[in-house]
């Protein structure tokens, strides 16, 4: 336990009245969190296991009377979840790879290779931070259409590279790597690419992790952009497919599909929670 002093003094907490107050607050917060954040998730997971009649029943049952797995199996088959999940995986993985390769290379060039007009280019990239991404979806859509990329995963992959936030994060990290280290490697005869691969990247593991998570989550959670560029049902990621199919499908099946759609990111979060939470807390300024 860290001993840093906070709003309430440790002395006040040590008194019997302080202790009682502390445990009252603690219990209420636990209850509040359970009700506000965990209960909706519980309701969703169990709702999908109720029979269609039971889901529509008032007052609702807290625990399913009978546990049905058919909601989940129906969702898997009727809503073609394997196709949509696979589409999402392809879109997210490609966006991640493109971002990692092209943003890293560009950030390395801007940070260490001193290109002429480097300052101007960096300024142009940072200026896009001022332009809210969503306000430009229509002209961006028209450009993607002109390039013939509609219904193509490239429509997700290439625009993902134009991510000023991640590029700047990488550049700032590379800036901290001392030039001496790189120059020494150069005298040893290492080329620029080899320096990037063997020195810069291994030293940048933490920032690469953060950028990777941001890149994956952004694609998995996005809705408006894939809604625009994938009119072909067979190419749609799960977020778009869920909304398109939600109109005419049984409630229990839809809920089951919602649970399935949430599992990958929630699982990733639970596995990497320490890194993700540390990353956000470490002054990440992303909204």
């Amino acid at each position, binding site marked *: 336990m860290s001993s840093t*002093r*906070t*709003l309430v003094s440790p002395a006040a907490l040590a008194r019997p009245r302080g202790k009682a107050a502390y445990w009252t607050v*603690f219990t209420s*917060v*636990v209850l509040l*969190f359970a009700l506000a954040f965990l209960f*909706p998730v519980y309701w969703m997971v169990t709702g999908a296991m109720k029979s269609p009649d039971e889901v529509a029943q*008032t007052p*609702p049952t807290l625990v399913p009377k009978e546990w049905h797995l058919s909601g989940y199996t129906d969702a898997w088959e009727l809503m073609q979840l394997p196709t949509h999940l696979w589409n999402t995986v392809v879109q997210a993985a490609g966006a991640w790879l493109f971002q990692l390769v*092209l*943003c890293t*290379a*560009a950030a390395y*060039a801007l940070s260490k*290779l001193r*290109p*002429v007009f*480097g300052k101007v280019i960096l300024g142009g990239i940072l200026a*896009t931070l*001022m*332009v*809210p991404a*969503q*306000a*430009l*979806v*229509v*002209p961006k859509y*028209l*450009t993607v259409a002109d390039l013939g990329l509609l219904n193509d995963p490239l429509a997700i992959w*290439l625009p993902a*590279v*134009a991510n000023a936030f991640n*590029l700047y994060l990488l550049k700032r990290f590379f800036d901290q790597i001392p030039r*001496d*280290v790189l*120059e*020494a490697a150069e005298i040893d005869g290492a080329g*620029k690419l080899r320096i990037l691969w*063997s*020195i810069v990247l291994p030293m940048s593991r933490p920032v690469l992790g953060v950028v990777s998570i941001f890149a994956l*989550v952004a694609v998995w*959670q996005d*809705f408006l952009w894939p809604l625009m560029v994938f009119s072909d049902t067979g190419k749609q990621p799960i*977020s778009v497919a*869920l909304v398109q199919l*939600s109109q005419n499908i049984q*409630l229990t099946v839809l809920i089951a599909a*919602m649970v399935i759609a*949430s599992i990958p990111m*929630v699982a990733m979060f*639970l596995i990497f*929670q320490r890194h993700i*939470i540390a990353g*956000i*807390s470490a002054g990440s*300024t*992303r*909204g």
Partner: protein
Amino acid sequence: MTRTAQRRTVEKAAVRPVQAPPPAGERGRRRLADQTRAYAFLLGGLVCFALFSWYPAIRAVVIAFQKYTPGAPAEWVGTDNFTRVFDDPEFTAAWRNTFTFTLLALLIGFAIPFVLALVLNEIRHARAFFRVVVYLPVMIPPVVSALLWKWFYDPGTGLANEVLRLVDLPTSNWSNGADTALVSLVIVATWANMGGTVLIYLAALQSVPGELYEAAELDGANLLQRIRHVTIPQTRFVILMLMLLQIIATMQVFTEPFVITGGGPENATVTVLYLIYKYAFLYNDFGGACALSVMLLVFLGIFSALYLRLTRSEGEDT
């Protein structure tokens, strides 16, 4: 390269011999080769920024003054797009709804995470648990949280009215009532997004020096006075930054109204971005959509500029 190899290169750097400068002609050639290599690394990223960031920004402004149909030659129409959009009754509704949504999101969606972070910072047990749980909804895809709450808001069998019945309160139409729809959407957005705000604010609270609280206590300041005179001034910068970020994000709200209410009832939840989407994909009016985009762009640009200025000046301080 292994770590030992890395160390070796560092040692070598220390005893690097001073090289004689190469003759002028060779230096020029070397510089050209260096620049070519630098731009080879930059190229992929630059092309993507040019195509999907810089060009669309310029194009939005150009198309805002054109009659534009994909595949057909564009015609200049002056400010026709703007006047047509202004005359649309949905235009006023969309801006009013967006402003109301942003304001409500500041009142509800900012006050709650703020108080929650203050309380969480005092809790000395199960810290990791609270942080994971509060961030869990952020990891659920926005489309899923929107559909989930649409189900909760169902007037007949939804959980929201069930809870009200349980405590003997009158039931509500939630997202289906013209008066309550917008607030219902703010609740969804708050539930889904507050995890990030809580975590960032918690981190800021941890940087407040403990001596300040001690000194304030010695001066006889009670709990609320300590919050007012120590906590808030000490975290002023983060509060302001989070507020601006939230304004920028909520002004671009789309998923919740699109999925939960479809903009209704009676246009009560049409937002500016939703209207942009409608112009482009329902009315096939790309000129109108771009005119609206430019308006949103200019408006949000002011907030973004404020945000960048704030983070920049803070960066110089530290």
